[in-house]
Every structure is written in structure tokens, then in C-alpha cells.
């Protein structure tokens, strides 16, 4: 028995779904180019001296694009539930864990492709970061996506295929907005509230790239002038939402399978 062959076809099915595959990858890139290309010579973006506009937008869309990619596993689960395919799989030796792992795995694969495309586009517009900044930023983003994978599984078992699209589209936009993807949210109770969201930390994970150093060292951003945005608070918020969404996913899964 090989779940690798299952994973292979799971990937193939995702890639062949040209509309979903295309939109989840092309949309962030197109948005990036629309936002960043006209400002490609702006080296003091938002009046922050040394803040390179294409770099700022690359990081904003990093969170947005990867969040869409990982959450899309929920849409694929919802689609399979709608046609009863999940029941067909439950009468095979495929374990629930492997089923969900394949869904999340493909979501992460899409996220990696989305990130790679943004990096290439960013580099083409002149974004230059140290090797360690690229790596740390990428790893932190991948970790910060964990709660979204759990949320995707939960939504996939709560929504039907028709509702999944609008719900996730709206949810991603709202989370991205409140996470400070489009413009920095600073100061006041509103910012404090936003700091409790996983998307806020997803964006901060990307901003580690801006600061040019490893997280938690309190280092000063290379030319950006701000403190390293990541810290203990980030880990706590991520852990909280990972546990909460995992519990929700487990509840939704049990509810769905008991009803079937």
C-alpha cells in the first residue's frame, strides 16, 4: 500500500484544476506586480527612509498568497464531501490522518510555489535580502501557516462546496486586512486586537525579512528602522489558534462523519 501514489494523484488533481490552481497562484503575483512595479524606484516607502516599496509589497503578498494556498485544502475537502467521495475513501484503508495530511501537504505545496513566484517577481524588481533573511522569513511563514491549515480542514468539514468559495474568499480578505497586509496597523486598541489574530503574525513572519535578521534578537531592521517584529507573543498567538482551529476541525470532522 502506498499513500505516495495517492499523494501523487491528489497533487495531479489540484494542478489540473486550472481555475483554482491558476487563481491561487496568479492572483497574488498580478496584484504584486500592479502594486510594486509602479513604485519600483521608491526607496522610502510610506515615508520610511530606506523602506523599498517592492520589498514591502512582496512581504504583504507573501502572507496573502500563502494563506489562500493553504486554506484551499478546505475547498477541496468540501468539494469531495459534496459528491460523497469522502465516504468512498472512508471504506478504503486510507487513514483519516493520511487523508488530511495529503490535503494539507498539497496546500503547502501550493503555498511554496506561490512564495517562490513572489520571490522571483520581487528579485526581478530589485528586492535584495541576505540569504539568512530569505530562509528565516520563509520558515517563519511556513510555521505561521499551521493555524490556517487547521482552519482549512475545519471549514472543509463545515461548509458545502458552494459556500466554501465565498466564505474563504471573504475570510482571507478580512484576515489579510486585519493582519495588516495592505497597510501597517499601528497603535491603539485596534492594533492590540489585530495582534491577537494569526494573520497578523503571518504578516509579521514576512516582515522578519524586512528586519534582515533572525527573530527575537531585537535587531534593528536593515535600513527599515523598526524593531524585529517577531517575538514570544507571536508563538503564543500561533499556538493558541493552532489548538483552537485543530479542536474546531476535529469537532467538525466528527460531526460530519457521524451524520454521514
Amino acid at each position: 500500500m502506498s499513500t505516495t501514489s495517492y499523494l501523487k494523484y491528489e497533487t495531479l488533481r489540484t494542478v489540473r484544476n486550472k481555475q483554482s490552481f491558476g487563481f491561487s497562484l496568479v492572483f497574488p503575483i498580478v496584484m504584486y506586480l500592479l502594486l510594486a512595479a509602479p513604485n519600483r524606484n521608491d526607496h522610502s516607502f510610506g515615508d520610511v527612509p530606506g523602506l523599498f516599496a517592492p520589498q514591502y509589497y512582496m512581504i504583504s503578498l507573501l502572507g496573502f498568497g500563502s494563506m489562500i494556498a493553504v486554506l484551499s485544502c478546505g475547498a477541496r475537502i468540501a468539494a469531495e464531501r459534496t459528491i460523497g467521495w469522502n465516504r468512498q475513501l472512508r471504506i478504503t484503508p486510507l487513514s483519516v490522518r493520511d487523508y488530511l495530511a495529503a490535503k494539507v501537504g498539497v496546500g503547502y505545496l501550493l503555498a511554496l510555489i506561490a512564495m517562490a513566484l513572489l520571490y522571483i517577481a520581487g528579485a526581478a524588481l530589485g528586492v535584495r535580502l541576505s540569504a539568512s533573511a530569505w530562509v528565516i522569513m520563509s520558515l517563519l511563514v511556513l510555521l505561521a501557516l499551521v493555524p490556517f491549515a487547521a482552519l482549512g480542514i475545519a471549514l472543509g468539514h463545515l461548509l458545502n462546496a458552494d459556500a466554501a468559495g465565498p466564505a474563504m474568499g471573504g475570510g482571507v480578505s478580512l484576515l489579510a486586512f486585519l493582519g495588516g497586509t495592505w497597510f501597517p496597523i499601528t497603535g491603539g486598541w485596534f492594533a492590540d486586537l489585530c495582534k491577537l489574530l494569526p494573520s497578523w503574525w503571518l504578516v509579521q513572519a514576512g516582515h522578519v525579512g524586512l528586519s534582515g535578521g533572525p527573530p527575537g534578537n531585537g535587531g534593528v531592521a536593515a535600513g527599515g528602522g523598526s524593531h524585529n517584529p517577531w517575538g514570544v507573543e507571536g508563538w503564543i498567538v500561533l499556538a493558541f489558534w493552532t489548538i483552537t482551529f485543530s479542536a474546531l476541525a476535529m469537532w467538525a470532522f466528527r460531526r460530519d462523519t457521524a451524520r454521514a
Partner: protein
Amino acid sequence: MSDGIVLTGLTKSFNSPAGPVRAVRGIDVAIAPGETVALLGPNGAGKSTTIDMLLGLTKPDAGSVSIFSLDCRSAVAAGKVGAMLQVGGLVQYLSVRELLEMMAGLYPKPLPVEEIIGLCGIGDIADRATTKLSGGQTQRVRAAVALISNPDLLILDEPTVALDVESRREFWATIRGFAARGMTVIFATHYLEEADAYADRVVLMARGRVVADGPTTEIKATVGQRTIRATLPGSAAADLKQLPGVIAADVLGEAIVLTCTDSDAALRALIAAYPAARDFEVVGAGIEEAFLALTSDLEEDES
């Protein structure tokens, strides 16, 4: 695999807006390896719920399932069970062959994909996308998915419900080929003819219970009853019941109602013995009516 399939005291209720629905009310059935058994009953008899519990898709409120001495989870994990569920589409963005390869990859000892394609007669559509199939082709591919693991137990939940006569015949020819290899087959149907043609044994279900269980011929006699109605003044029910082919007689004023296992013989005898009888009407009991009659006494105890 000495032991076959044993269902013991299976019970399941669901909540509905109108209150709890007792879908299955205590099913006890033992099926020997290699048997082909039809679960026959009208809609709402509890066939699908029973099948879902047999497959481990629904957790019974009470009772147990044993499949070749294993619990259903272990039997499924060992690849011993294949099933065609009542409702279900095929996943998109794969060809039929790719779909079968994906499914084969999940089992410990699957049949070769090319072999299953040949056996199910889907060679002509093997490279077609799963979404570009007719109803009959889809059912054949779903059967192939159910059979790919080379299961010891094959479950079919109303597999031919949407098929025309020709597709239905072809479908069963394929299934019979597998049954002949010693596979145990359990199928749900609400067609008496289908149970009659393809099952060794019929488990008749109504309102969540087994109301009869036996060789197909026996069950057919039970549910294949007809009713003769006629006008006949001044007759006695006891006399009418003596007529050949009659199992029950009712007299309601001038009207008589004879429940018959052989309505032809009963009608001939009725005319010969009672020349005054008129307004004959012979009605075949629909399978649904027959089930309801069989369970009407049950209902009274329960409600």
C-alpha cells in the same frame, strides 16, 4: 475466512425536525461466505442505514458487526471490503484509469488496473475524464472502484437505480462474474425482480426490521400476493378461505376480499363454486403494500 458476515442487534436512530426517527430497530442477520444476499425493502426500510453500519460509516446505537471475524474497521483497513454506495460521484480531474490507479494504491493486494478495466468492460472509456461519462458508464466505473481491492465482501447499495434495462443487465453480468469467484455479495434493492434474479437469499426489510429472511423463492411467494375483490351476497368467510390459493378471506357486507398466493386458481374455483359472484377485480399487491401489511402488526406494538 470461516465466519461470514454477522450483524447482531443493530439499532440506529436519527434526530429529525419531527422527532427521533428509528431507522433501524434491531437487525440480526448472518451471511455465509460466498452467499449473494439481497436486502429488499421499500424506501425508508433502513437498508442504507444498515449498510452504512456494516461499513463502519455510521456508528450503531447498539449491536455489533463482524466481517470474517473482524470488526468493520479492521476489515476495511485490511482491504477486504469493497462498496458502491448509493450516492456518490467520481472525483474530477482524473481519467478513469488514473482514478483506478489512485484507488488501487490504497490497498494491500489490489487487482491489476488493466485486469479490472477488462473485467468491468470499461476499456473504451479508460482514458476519458471521470466527469465525461454517461450514467451507465459512471456506475460501471464505480463498480470498478468497489472491486479494485479484490474484496472478499462486496456491498452494493441500490446500484442500478438510475440505469436502463440494458445497462442493468450488463452491470449484473459483471457482478455475477465476481460472485462466481467466491466473493460474498450483499446488495440493497427495492426491486423484487432484481432480488429474484441475482440473489440466493433475500432479507426482507421494512420499517427498520427484518420481516422475512429466506431463499428468494420463499420471499417471492410472501410478497407476491394478489387480492381478489368481488361482490357476492350471502357467503361465509370460513368457506371462502377453503378455496384453493386463498390464504385469507374477508366479507364486508356483499363485498368479499380474498388474499391469494395463487389468484388464478382461486378465481377459477370462486367462479365454479359461486356462480352468483360478480364485479371481479384482481390486484397485485405492490411490494410496498406487501411490506406494510407484513409490518402493520409490528407498528401497533410500537406506537
